[in-house]
């Protein structure tokens, strides 16, 4: 177990290292470099000044040398300064991470509360009208563009009805409930686009579980249908569901990025988008790496959960070799 965990963590670190280089390279390929930005901010800089600045900042050196310099200071805990915030990168990241966590956890919880019962109910009555309706709703949920749903929510609840604020977090001091009020639309948007997938996982897993002999035995011994489903089948059906949920973490993060951007919600996703758009290289790099690490951790949890919940499955040799995909 510990060996497996260590192996996975080493693999994850390798992925992070490779990704840091790839992202570093890609960011170098984006339009403009820091000196171009200085020139546009201060037109009095001459061409010689620009040359000198490039030398000072090491921009005339080849990319792998610059990457090595960045990586060395990053390993020492120095991730540089954010250009747009004029503060150390990690200081900018911290509060954003908390906001994103609130959004994602809220949406995840709501999606679970809708998705699991709906999936179980549909599975217990396959082919019924309720099943068809749940099925259609889940198709709409997995097919709706997140940004458009956010737009429609804003039009309906903020513009037309005026019930809820259209954006972000309250400005200035505000009570807890004011915070919650601002969170309703973003959380609802993200929950709606996530819930459909959970319904589908849950329904499929439950139908599979209900086929087993032990379910028939339980029914034959007189257990009620509800009791068979909740007491016997659910435990087994949850194994694959928990796994795919942990795996859907990356998708949840992508959804959070769009939701945050649409609602001007100050989280990680919006930070990534803004830093890329605003040529804030240091910040973009670290934020993207952070997102990668979070996704990797989600995948690791998925694999561990799979093993922990189903004792018949041993730890595979490689990541995801035995995953229920």
């Amino acid at each position, binding site marked *: 177990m510990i060996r497996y965990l260590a192996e996975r963590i080493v*693999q994850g670190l390798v*992925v992070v290292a*490779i*990704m840091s280089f790839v*992202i570093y390279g*890609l*960011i*170098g*390929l*984006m*339009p*403009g470099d820091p000196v171009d930005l200085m020139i546009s901010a201060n037109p009095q800089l001459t061409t010689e000044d620009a040359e000198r600045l490039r030398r000072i900042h090491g921009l005339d050196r080849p990319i792998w040398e610059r990457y090595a310099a960045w990586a060395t200071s990053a390993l020492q805990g120095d991730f540089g300064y954010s250009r747009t915030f004029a503060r150390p990168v990690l200081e900018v990241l911290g509060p954003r991470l908390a906001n994103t966590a609130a959004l994602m956890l809220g949406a995840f919880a709501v999606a679970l509360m809708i998705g699991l019962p709906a999936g179980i109910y549909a599975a217990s009555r396959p*082919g019924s009208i309720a099943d*068809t309706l749940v099925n259609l709703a889940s*198709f*709409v949920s*997995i*097919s*709706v*563009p*997140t*940004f*458009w*749903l956010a*737009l*429609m929510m*804003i*039009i309906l609840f903020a*513009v037309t009805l005026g019930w809820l604020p259209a954006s972000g977090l309250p400005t200035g001091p505000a009570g807890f409930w004011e915070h919650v009020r601002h969170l309703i639309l973003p959380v609802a948007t993200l929950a709606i686009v996530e819930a459909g997938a959970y319904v*589908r996982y849950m329904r*499929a897993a439950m139908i599979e579980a209900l086929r087993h002999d032990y379910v028939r035995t339980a029914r034959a011994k007189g257990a009620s249908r509800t009791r068979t489903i909740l007491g016997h089948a659910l435990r087994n059906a949850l194994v694959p569901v928990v796994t*795919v949920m942990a*795996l859907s973490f*990356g*998708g949840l*993060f*992508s959804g959070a*990025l*769009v939701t945050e*951007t649409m609602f001007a919600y100050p989280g990680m*996703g919006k930070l*990534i*988008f803004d830093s*890329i*758009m605003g040529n804030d290289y240091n910040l*973009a790099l670290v934020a*993207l790496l952070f*997102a*990668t690490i*979070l*996704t*990797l951790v989600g*995948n690791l949890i998925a694999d561990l959960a799979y093993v922990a919940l189903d004792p018949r499955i041993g730890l595979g040799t*490689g*990541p*995801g070799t035995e995953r229920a*995909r």
Partner: protein
Amino acid sequence: MTDARRSLGIAAAATLATLVVLAAAAPLIAAAMGHDITEADLLQRYEPPSLAHPLGTDELGRDVLLRLLYGGRISLTVGIVAAIMAASIGTVVGLLAGYFGGRLDTMLMRVTDGVIALPLLPLLIVLAAVDLGELGLPPAIAESERVSLYRIILITALVGWTTVARLVRGTTLSLKSRDFVRAAAALGAGHVRIMAVHILPNAASPIIVATTLAVGQIILFESVLSFLGLGIQPPLPSWGNMLTNAQEVIWEAPLLAFYPGVLILITVSACNLLGDAIQEWLDPRAVVRR
């Protein structure tokens, strides 16, 4: 397959076919209506639906219906072409990994797992923001409007091949020790021939299902990137970038924000429904979707 599911699948196929035909016929429809998509008329902004403009006009007085049709051409082209490209990459990777096994398999699957583990949307945003001029492309090409189309196809295909790779690898692994494959090898068939003639046709059904589902996913990615200003660049219309403009005039004309999104929703739902229906039809027990 239950009747309800079957008819849903058929309805999805019919919807997709209609959308493709309408999008393909966009220039003909434009000619029949006597408009041009680029034709702006600032005296006729935000016109309500009329005979001349069935869905009204937008903030520049352009015909909304025509722009939707032309946008559909772009979005459907991106979805279908990128999905086929992604499926091709995935098929090659999966075949090589499954057939040759060993170190090649380990390496290819590590790469696949690595790509699966990435947060896709942030990565796509970075890829879409790369300045092609810096890659050494001549400015004339790097800044032409068609390039935004090719770029979005390329980058979505680059991140979208992993599902097919896994499926094809799995099928190849289970097929390569089967008797008909060993017979072919004994008769002197080369590796390429065995993979192309004996293994690939048997892996066709999961590939078809995964590709159908991928069309919808890629259209979603295209629309969000275009919406954020990183995908298809105006004046080329796509459903995503039509929503960028619509968002700015949400007070004057909320319906402009409604139409493109509904079309995306219908198209992607149809792809998902069709993918599921094909899957049940070809192989009721297999589960392709993760």
